């Protein structure tokens, strides 16, 4: 019997990639043009098909309203969250409010939930793999930032289902990277994974033995990534243009996109260069028909100065991760860099300085996560699993109490899977149901935490108040996803559970989305000169 193929997919904010195990090695799969990383950009074309990847990124200038980028920044968030507010201000596509304060994207007279956009990227990864191996593939491990909360993890899992995938595991990105590096021969090394992606930042500390990867602590910032570095350059360019010509390019979405692209390119220059020459021709045309170019020179020193506070923020997170594991930088045996932005010398130098050691970058920081995911996918499907992962939950799970307060149920950095039970007693005669709200976060104030949902347990047996005890079990599974169940403490009868007020999709919404996803064709990729790859 042929070995079953399972994909490891790194679903990134800016770029995604996919890997499988071949002859015992993780192989990153190229698309038909040999590209290993694919922009997480989805462009809805006029003919109803979608273009995904690096070609779709080119559409960001040509058709900004129908080209969706950075969906990962929105996934699993509430419409009223800061991140969504920020995205609405800068993104050229329409972000609208859905049911239960969810986020939807309106494009070409259609409304899409955010997981549907991510599902298009996953569909592309699936297609790339299938073209490579020559048969259908459905099983996959999909990675998420370690600091993703339950809503974000659940939404990512939903995206997988919408794309027709059998999601074997939601795996934390830093943990995946550690798996790809392997180690294994040294006894109990303590390794820090410094993972700066396009939109998120994670730090995990792992103890790695011969066959075990134990996460000792994790911390992160899901509002900090390479995009923020681009944004600093962008703001600088916009301010400069405004000063020179008195024109605010922020108001011109087409121009803004062009300058954004130039800012990103300038940032990438500093991976090995010292000066970036920025030139955006004909960026603005005034009322008299006069056209202006945007021109600027940015030195590495200026750039470093612009982003220093962002770099500092990453080390605050490092402090937190070390503290949670009751360690100092001296207790660390190795540092691994993950994510494209870690190519910046300002990051490398700062990491070297903070940990007092040379960071390890021997595996391509853009590809290491999908390779680790492929290793885990392979291990799950095989009887002879040689290594195992012991991961933790990144945030404290909380129960809402009276007066807008919460109390902790499962602390952050607790190993998973785990469960914890609480008993609730009825407070009225003949009470038929119990409602509870659960949250994730580190504050006692409910307002400062993220609400995961309101659960309603109904069908309690009729009795006097205080006579019915409902035992509620909170479980965090191996995906880091929360499950809540309830049963009558005496009869053991399971109470029926309704989830209200959750930002997630209902079962029928997922089914409909899956049908729509299956019916949407992926557009072929064009080469630079416009030549289309023959099917």
């Amino acid at each position: 019997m042929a070995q079953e193929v399972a994909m490891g997919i790194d679903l990134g904010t800016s770029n995604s990639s996919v890997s499988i195990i071949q002859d015992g090695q993780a192989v990153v799969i190229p698309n038909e043009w040999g590209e290993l990383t694919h922009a997480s950009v989805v462009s809805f074309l006029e003919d109803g098909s979608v273009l995904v990847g690096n070609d779709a990124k080119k559409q960001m200038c040509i058709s900004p309203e129908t080209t969706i980028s950075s969906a990962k920044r929105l996934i699993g968030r509430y419409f009223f969250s800061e991140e969504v507010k920020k995205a609405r201000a800068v993104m050229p596509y329409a972000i609208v409010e859905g049911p239960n304060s969810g986020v939807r994207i309106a494009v070409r007279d259609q409304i899409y939930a955010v997981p549907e956009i991510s599902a298009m990227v996953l569909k592309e990864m699936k297609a790339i793999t299938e073209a490579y191996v020559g048969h259908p593939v459905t099983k996959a491990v999909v990675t998420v930032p370690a600091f993703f909360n339950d809503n974000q993890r659940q939404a990512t899992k939903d995206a997988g289902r919408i794309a027709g995938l059998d999601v074997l595991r939601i795996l934390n990105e830093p943990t995946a990277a550690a798996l790809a590096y392997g180690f294994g021969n040294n006894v109990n090394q303590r390794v820090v994974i410094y993972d700066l992606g396009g939109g998120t930042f994670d730090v995990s500390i792992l103890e790695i033995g011969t066959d075990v990867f134990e996460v000792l602590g994790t911390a992160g910032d899901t509002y900090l990534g390479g995009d923020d570095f681009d944004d600093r350059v962008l703001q600088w360019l916009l301010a400069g243009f405004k000063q020179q010509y008195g024109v605010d390019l922020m108001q011109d979405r087409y121009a803004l996109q062009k300058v954004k692209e130039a800012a990103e390119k300038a940032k990438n220059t500093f991976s090995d260069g010292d000066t970036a020459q920025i030139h955006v021709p004909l960026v603005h045309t005034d009322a008299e028909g006069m056209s202006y170019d945007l021109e600027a020179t940015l030195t590495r020193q200026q750039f470093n100065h612009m982003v220093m506070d962002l770099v500092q923020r990453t080390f605050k997170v490092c402090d937190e991760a070390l503290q949670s594991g009751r360690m100092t930088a001296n207790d660390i045996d190795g540092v691994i860099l993950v994510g494209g932005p870690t190519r910046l010398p300002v990051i490398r130098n700062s990491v070297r300085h903070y940990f007092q050691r040379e960071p390890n970058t021997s595996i391509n920081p853009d590809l290491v996560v999908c390779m680790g995911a492929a290793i885990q996918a392979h291990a799950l499907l095989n009887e002879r699993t040689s290594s195992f992962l012991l991961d933790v939950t990144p945030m404290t799970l909380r129960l809402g109490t009276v007066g807008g307060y919460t109390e902790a149920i499962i602390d952050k950095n607790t190993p998973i899977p785990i469960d914890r039970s609480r008993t609730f007693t009825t407070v009225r005669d003949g009470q038929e149901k119990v409602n509870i709200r659960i949250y994730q976060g580190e504050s006692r104030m409910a307002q400062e935490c993220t609400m995961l949902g309101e659960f309603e347990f109904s069908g309690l047996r009729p009795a006097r108040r205080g006579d019915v005890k409902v035992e509620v079990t909170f479980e965090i599974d191996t995906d880091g996803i929360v499950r809540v169940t309830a049963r009558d403490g005496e009869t053991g009868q399971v109470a029926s559970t309704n989830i209200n007020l959750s930002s997630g999709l209902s079962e029928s919404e997922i089914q409909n989305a899956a049908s729509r996803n299956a019916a949407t064709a992926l557009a072929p990729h064009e080469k630079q000169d416009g030549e289309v790859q023959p099917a």
Partner: protein
Amino acid sequence: MADYTEPQFWPVLKQLAQNIDGMDYYQILNLAQDATPADIKGSYYGQSRSLHPDKFYHLDDGSLKDAVHKIYKRVTEAYNVLRDDRKRKVYTANINGPSRATKLRFDEATQEQAKEQEKQEKEVTTNPKAKPLYLKAVQQMNAGNWEGAFKDLQTAVMFDGGNEKLKALKDEVDKRRKEKK
């Protein structure tokens, strides 16, 4: 080491899942109550090696997977409590006490107990008159003024006579004070 994914062990695992509610954390990790932190970690790794749900992922038997899941969740719970000295102390006292049967799992009440204990340990004195003197003495110790610290502690001991911790601290400071002379 036995490979529990072999069918011959399945009935054993299902039985274990049923019995696990009657076991304490030491029994679950197969440890003596005086186990060292290294023993605890070693046993957690060992149990993970044979019982992590990922090892059973490829199997089809749903009830077996449920059993493994239940057992393994209790393994992580046991590790999470026993690796924390403070929680472990309270837990161990509880399971050796008269209400052992209701204290096999670390619950909110135990959590409160542990917190209270920590508070007490941190607080050298709760006596309203001795406390400000003690706090002042700590400041002086930090500044290296052993003579001043000693005087304050001497007075504090007068107010909170039965407090052994305070007395020990006073004696320690007295020693340092004399050394300096």
